[in-house]
């Protein structure tokens, strides 16, 4: 079978991408919101985020597993065969979709609790002020938090944040997508 024939016979991966992104996006959003309120209600500790707790650690890197989950879903529900390159693409798209879902949910949450973003910002700045770094750098980091929060409230700022987070989340999910192919899929002889 030529690569072209194989490619043409490949079913769509969009359902798998959507399912994985929705699942990972919603779960990481919920955990990060809970961790956010835990932070707001704790004393600043001189670190970017106060309190090294499970709520802070668990969401770390969770968003990177959307790629693997999407590949798992595809091989289970659609087709067992998958090339490494296709796994990378599915992973990238899943990562991008996770960022989109997180952005939309964060925007929606601001409607429910308009003070949330400001409270997070103020807490973060209070934490920065306690950090043991040169005053000039400290002031610039505080300024950047102000600017970021301000930009997040505009459409362009939201779009920029989504694109940045999406690109990096996508890159990381390329890797987990490829690992997913190795674990769950039967690779055709021509592996790309």
């Amino acid at each position, binding site marked *: 079978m030529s690569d072209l024939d194989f490619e043409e016979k490949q079913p769509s991966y969009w359902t798998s991408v959507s399912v994985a992104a929705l699942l990972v996006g919603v779960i990481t959003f919920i955990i990060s919101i809970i961790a956010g309120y835990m932070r707001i209600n704790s004393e600043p500790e001189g670190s970017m*985020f106060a309190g090294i707790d499970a709520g802070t650690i668990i969401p770390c890197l969770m968003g990177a597993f959307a790629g693997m989950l999407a590949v798992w879903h595809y091989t289970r529900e659609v087709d067992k065969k998958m090339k490494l390159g296709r796994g990378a693409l599915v992973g990238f798209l899943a990562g991008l979709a996770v960022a989109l879902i997180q952005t939309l949910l964060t925007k929606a949450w601001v409607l429910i609790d308009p003070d949330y973003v400001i409270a997070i910002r103020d807490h973060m700045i209070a934490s920065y002020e306690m950090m043991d770094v040169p005053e000039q750098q400290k002031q610039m980091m505080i*300024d950047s938090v102000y600017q970021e929060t301000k930009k997040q409230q505009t459409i362009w700022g939201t779009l920029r944040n989504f694109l*940045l987070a999406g690109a990096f989340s996508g890159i990381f999910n390329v890797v987990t997508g490829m690992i997913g192919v*190795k674990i769950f899929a039967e690779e055709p002889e021509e592996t790309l």
Partner: protein
Amino acid sequence: MKHYTPTFEWGIGIALGIPVLFAFGPGIWGDASEFLQRAIPYRLIFQSLCHQIADRCYIINGWIMPVCSRCLGIYLGLFGGWILGAVFGSNLPTGKKLWGVISLFWLLLNIADVLFNLIGMWDNTLSSRLVLGIALSVSATFYIRS
């Protein structure tokens, strides 16, 4: 170990190199640090991928890195491992099972390191987290190529 088409090798290699550049933060760029801190939202870029707890991040020239040392290790390992595999892959032992077991070993060691540190059984350091992150991600790239 498998080698792929040059486009794929270069594409993945460049993609994995981009997070490494940003993960160091503005501190490595000397006089341009202040400009870059203003221009690039480092913290936002990695917000959904790393907890960014400052005392778990390296500080370069007074600038705190936007990722923790373990994540830095992971990004360095993914990039370095992919390049190593591309250049020296044919000299490395092959076998999906072998690299799968090695990757799993490093993954479990990372999980144990996080959990035992959380419950206070031991204190890990910036360097130990960095090394564990590198080991995990290098073996993961070799697993992908196996």
